[in-house]
């Protein structure tokens, strides 16, 4: 019992974790750039987001293959198996976060219209706050995975509740704006789409946290309602 030495599988799992953490960093980086690109309407930066997207997709495919090999070659069980299963889902969530960042940046890349979003509207819908919260949730989920800290992972749930509240109020603000005389409908639609994506990024960060908890505690939290998650905080 005392002879705890590192097995081949342990080495492989360490490498897997490292690859996932790198992918998490890439995606967080993509989101940061998407935020800046959107707020500043910076087309060059928006293009960078698209380049990173390709790397994120490549990481997704490569880690997926890595997981498939580990299952086929090592027949993992218990926490090893849970780590691999959680990993396949985490990378899929990360890939989708990357997609959302890329799509937000795509709105900036479209040059046809110079988008002058009314500053007061952006402020009212708390767009910057939503971006920051989404990024913060990703960071906490990443940190929880790195440190194998399920308590930290649970903090993402509280943040998701805040995210949903901001989202709800943003929608009603936009509704109010839309009822004004001569609203800029095309801009409203773009903004609505961005806000939706940010809310989804929050959900995906929450999913990543749930997978980390599944890996660490063998507890399945997905598909629970927000009020149930509140009890788990």
């Amino acid at each position, binding site marked *: *019992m*005392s*002879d*705890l030495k590192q*097995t081949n*599988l*342990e080495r492989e799992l360490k490498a897997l974790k490292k690859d996932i953490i790198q992918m998490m960093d890439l995606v967080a980086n993509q989101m940061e750039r998407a935020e800046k690109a959107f707020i500043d309407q910076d087309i060059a930066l928006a293009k960078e987001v698209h380049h990173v997207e390709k790397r994120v997709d490549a990481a997704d495919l490569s880690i997926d293959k890595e997981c498939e090999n580990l299952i086929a070659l090592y*027949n*993992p*069980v*218990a*926490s*090893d*198996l*849970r780590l691999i299963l959680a990993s396949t889902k985490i990378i899929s969530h990360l890939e989708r976060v990357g997609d959302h960042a890329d799509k937000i940046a795509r709105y900036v890349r479209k040059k046809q219209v110079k988008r002058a979003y009314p500053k007061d509207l952006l402020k009212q819908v708390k767009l910057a706050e939503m971006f920051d919260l989404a990024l913060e949730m990703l960071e906490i989920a990443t940190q929880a995975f790195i440190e194998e800290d399920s308590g930290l992972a649970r903090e993402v749930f509280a943040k998701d509740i805040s995210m949903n509240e901001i989202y709800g109020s943003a929608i009603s603000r936009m509704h109010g704006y839309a009822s004004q005389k001569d609203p800029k409908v095309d801009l409203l639609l773009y903004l609505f789409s961005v806000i939706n994506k940010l809310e989804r990024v929050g959900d995906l960060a929450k999913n990543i946290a749930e997978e980390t908890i599944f890996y660490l505690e*063998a507890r399945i939290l997905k598909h629970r309602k927000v009020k149930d998650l509140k009890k788990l905080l």
Partner: protein
Amino acid sequence: MEKKSKELEKQLSTSTQGQKTDDKSHFETIEDGNKKKMDEKILSKSVKSDQADKTPADDDVTSKKKIAKLSSDSVNVFYGEKKVIDDVSIQIYPNTVTAFIGPSGCGKSTFLRLFNRMNDYIDTFRMEGLIRVDEKDIYQSDVHVEELRKQVGMVFQKPNPFPKSIYENVAYGLKIQGIRDKSTLDEAVENSLKASALWNEVKDNLQQSALALSGGQQQRLCIARTLAVKPSVILMDEPASALDPIATAKIEELIHQLKDNYTIVIVTHNMQQAGRVSDRTAFFYLGKLIEYSKTKKLFTSPDEEMTENYITGRFG
């Protein structure tokens, strides 16, 4: 010489028991007043240990089949001064496959052999506690070991057919019971070979020497020989460890099929095999039963860290 005769006696009484009779009274013992209490205690213990992974399948085990086929209560086993089994209590339910896993020397084979008193052949063997088959204490002095072994058959790691024909191997146990009627023997041989999934491969060569069969076929023949005397429990001590993957898969498939009619306990070093064939798994370490739960639970989220470390290969 004495050793040889002991070996022979062992083979005869384990592998080739006589036909099962309805009269189980041979090894029935005098019920004592505490027995019922003891049973309740064991049952309540088992239900408690199952609560963590309760599923409808478990309810099935705990409600419909709550009377254990095999059980032990606070069993200690000593070889001379050395304690090799340390306070093990377990309930094994009918028509289930239970796997015993653990590192070499953890006592899993010794524990398995308690259920048909195979350890009796070891001079320094001593046991404390209760071992029950169908709720009867099988270590009472009035238990007929031969009758017990008719009910609790055993298959060993290495296939051990007799140097006789396939037919004779399967019919041997019945013959030493005094059954001579050819049609009865023919029927028993065919049924046993069919049940052990060997019939189609050997039906045209029943007079061929058993030693001419492949290792996997020999092992299935030994299973047929065990089945011929109609046991209700089959103990398997690493039955596939000497076989190639194809033969192993056949034995595993056979275990699946036999589960409907028998209670099977299998000792295995191969954890994937334990995962594939068993409903429940017991993990032993240094003579102690560390964890006993549904196989799915034990291999996905074991309760004990020691189990986790063993099944993930972090020690052993």
